[in-house]
């Protein structure tokens, strides 16, 4: 009898333990929630903005400020756009825009950590909150704006897809008929794959597409003769061509980039997480500030002079507003320091300055193209700063 009783007690204890387990489970769930919150707080954000750091609503701006450093997603290597240096920093137009954003938000253009991302992983990295913004020659498309869950800022480089092949068989006038039967190389996860199929199919050409992970591999495959042509944004092709010509790897004009009118529209600009308009405004207006500086003829050398002049009665009131001297409430509403855009221009420069510094050496010029000021027939245009 006693034995039975002890067994019964044991069974009861088991049941109790099982129930205890259950409640333990639910407790764990809550802790997990707390745990998440704690982790995010550890990132440096206040509890009210934790949700934003992982995506929904606002919060990226506060998170960046608290962290004291901007996490900027860039390319793993695109000539003149992002060139990763051995010390982990980066040069190029995209890298410079990361610096500009850091200058605006944190007052220091060097407070940037560059995160090189492949074309295929970039959106996941952004959406997972590992980077705050992508300056990674990313084309603005409708599906990325909606389906993929991103928002885009003003275009910093108007590009178009081109093809590159040996100049002994292609010219700048070559068209679909000339690539019929060819194998083309490109890198995975970009708009180029779809564009080229559409272009070839419309032109009645039948092509094969060899898709590699990075564009540098596409270039390797092209040089090894694995494919006849290579295709990506024309700027990238020109960059690869010129840098190889300069290093003496190929003869001048051994390769040709064609066709003259690009086969697609590739507006490249910043991308950030959807539904964070506070952060979106900051990114957009940082880019616009470089446009406005371009329009006003400002650059990092004469900015002090022009700012001082703007303070006088016959000065340019827009410059004064942009630098927070005239109406600091705009800057406050943006959540930035009053002289945030002064930091951008003085530390990084105006649009033309950034462009010329990075893209001219590889043979890409803005004069007369889409990337010139709107008054010169280009598309670089900023809304008024007031």
């Amino acid at each position, binding site marked *: 009898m006693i034995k039975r009783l002890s*067994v*019964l007690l044991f*069974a009861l204890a088991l049941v109790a333990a099982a129930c205890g387990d259950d409640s333990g*489970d639910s407790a764990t*769930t809550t802790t997990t929630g707390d745990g998440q919150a704690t982790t995010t707080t550890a990132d440096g954000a206040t509890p009210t903005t934790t949700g934003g750091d*992982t*995506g*929904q609503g606002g919060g990226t701006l506060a998170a960046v400020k608290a962290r004291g450093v901007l996490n900027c997603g860039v390319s793993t290597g695109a000539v003149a756009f992002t060139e990763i240096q051995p010390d982990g920093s980066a040069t190029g137009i995209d890298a410079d825009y990361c610096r500009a954003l850091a200058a605006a938000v944190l007052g220091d253009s060097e407070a940037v950590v560059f995160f090189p991302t492949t*074309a*295929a992983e970039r*959106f*996941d990295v952004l*959406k*997972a*909150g590992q980077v705050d913004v992508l300056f990674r020659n990313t084309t603005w498309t409708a*599906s*990325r704006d909606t*389906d*993929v*869950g991103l928002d885009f800022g003003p275009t910093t480089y108007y590009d178009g897809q081109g093809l590159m092949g*040996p100049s*002994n*068989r292609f010219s700048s006038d070559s068209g679909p*008929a000339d*690539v*019929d*039967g*060819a*194998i083309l190389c490109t890198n*995975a*996860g*970009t708009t180029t*794959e*779809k564009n*080229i*199929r*559409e272009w070839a*199919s*419309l032109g*009645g*050409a*039948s*092509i*094969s*597409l*060899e*898709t*590699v*992970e990075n564009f540098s*591999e596409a270039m*390797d*495959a092209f040089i*090894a*003769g*694995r*494919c*006849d042509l290579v295709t990506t944004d024309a700027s990238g092709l020109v960059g690869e061509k010129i840098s190889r010509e300069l290093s003496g790897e190929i003869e001048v004009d051994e390769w040709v980039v064609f066709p003259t009118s690009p086969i697609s529209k590739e507006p490249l600009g910043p991308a950030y*997480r*959807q*539904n964070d308009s506070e952060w979106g405004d900051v990114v957009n207006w940082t880019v616009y500030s470089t446009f406005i500086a371009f329009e006003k003829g400002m650059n990092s050398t004469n900015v002090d002079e022009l700012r001082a002049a703007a303070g006088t009665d016959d000065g340019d009131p827009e410059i004064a507003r942009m630098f927070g001297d005239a109406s600091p409430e705009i800057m406050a509403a943006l959540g930035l320091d009053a002289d945030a855009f002064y930091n951008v221009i003085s530390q990084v420069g105006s649009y033309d300055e950034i462009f010329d510094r990075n893209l001219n050496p590889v043979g890409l010029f803005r004069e007369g193209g889409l990337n010139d000021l709107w008054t010169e027939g280009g598309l670089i245009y900023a809304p008024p700063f007031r």
Partner: protein
Amino acid sequence: MAVTVQKHERPPIWRNTTILKWTAQIAFLFGFLAIVAVVVPQVQDNLAGRDITFGWDWLTSELGFLIREGIDTDPATGARTMLVGMVNTLRVTISGVIAATIIGTIIGIARLSNNWIVNKLATVYIETIRNVPLLLQMFFWSAIAGTFVVLDPFDPDTLEAGKYWVAATSKGIGLAWIQPWGGFYQWMIWVLIGAVLGYFLHRRQFRIKEETGRETYPNLSAFGVILVFAIIGWFAHPIFGFVGTIVEAIGNLVGAIPTFALQVVLAVGAIAVGIWWINRFLDERRTPAGLAKLTDDDWFRMITAGVVAVGFAAFFLIVSGFSAKTLDVGEDFFSRWLAPKFDSTTNVADITIDDIQAQVAAGLSLEQIAAEQELRINADLLGLSGADLDAAVAARTPAIRIYENLPEKPDERLTFIPAHKLVEGLTAGVADNLNTLVENDGITPTELATELRLIQDRADNPLRWSRAEVQIRGSNFLDLSPTSGINITPGFFAVWIAVTLYTGAFIAEIVRAGILAVSKGQTEAAGALGLTRAQSLRFIILPQAFRIIFPPLGNQYLNLFKNTSLGIAVAFSEIVSVGFTTSNQTGQTLPVILFWMGFYLSGSLILSAVVNFYNRRLQLVER
């Protein structure tokens, strides 16, 4: 002695293992479901919070990117895109498993050789390959492939267009290969008859050998019968042309079966299999006295089997789509796929040899002829008829353009036959030079039409050597013909050779260990019986070694299967590479990852089920 109660008493409920066990099972099931119920909404919330949409629409929508190699390089839907990737993965896996097994066995035996050089070479191979990361090896082979001859008509060192036994080029490696030709399927019937007769002969000879001890050469005689039939069939295959009619009739018969009938048959079949399994199980548990002593575990298994059988039966009865699809596929297989293989000549296009000859004489290029046939064959699909069709033919509008511009595309793009598939030989072969071939090289129009695959003559040989062909494609590009010989792309080459050598090294060690594990006494006993070294290997050592080798061998096959996923690094379009592009184009990362996991999981489970099945058959039968 007092009266003792001998009556069997049921144990109290908390000590009844049956009840405890079942309670635990059910509790675990509910616990698991509860975790799922917590996790799934949590994941959904998190996804929504990060503006990540989750869905499977991409499986049915067009993704619009090209794939380098596979069964379909321009897939119409996401599902088909993934299918192409899966087939590529399986292609490299299956060929890799075969090659790795052969290499592993040879190297493993070489490792035990008494010849010093052979022995050391095998050791060096194994130690080198095993200790270098597989990814590096893939890069190495990819780089090797990059050093092959560049195919570019403007390069003086290039290969000229023409046929080659071996053509190692920067765009791929072409090898001569045996290809099924005109009379292949009729000939296969001869071979099949030979195989059936050979099987029975083998059984008979083997029985006689067992009974009398007389050497009757069972394997040799069976092989001889197949060979004789194959040789006779090589010449006499056209007499089986009539099989096409029978196959057609079978196809029609399958098509005539109402869906409901198949549903009932399948459901009854599922129940019957369940009953059969339970019966067999009871038989196994029955003692010689005829009493079945069943444990709770046995009951549990039988109930599970019953529930699964009823579940399947219910599935077949409720989901009519499965049965309908099965019937469709069956009908297509017999009527559309198999039956035409027996027609004396197959006109893919509605055009005769004389027509082609006349059109060529009239100055039309073969591409133009093909373009017209493409329009006519796809006329229904394109909604063209009468004057419209004639106008399109006259304008030489590419059919694909009309198709692309259709306001509402038919569901199945498969039904569209593009010109390059219709006349693979045209794009594949000598393209622009075909007209000249007719005039200069004395090639007959029949040969030409056969080459173009417009017509296949069933009276032709069953097999033929197909040499690799460097061809001129489109606007003067050199490429390997996809239809001649076998064509290995640089990506496939790098993945295949890397996984084969890598897995081969591991298999070699397994083989060596297996042979060494057979007791030395066995070899000595075989020697004492007067068996030669070869005989003792063949009859004594290897059969016992194989039993030891097999389970770890299966693991290596699984490793090889999973290692092919590194193919993305060398631009081989396997499932991971294709899925990667898909997820990036659609933004559907999680569904694609789930798809990958499902594919690798089911592939591995199937592979291990096969390995386990053979392993069980190989086990020593102990009494």
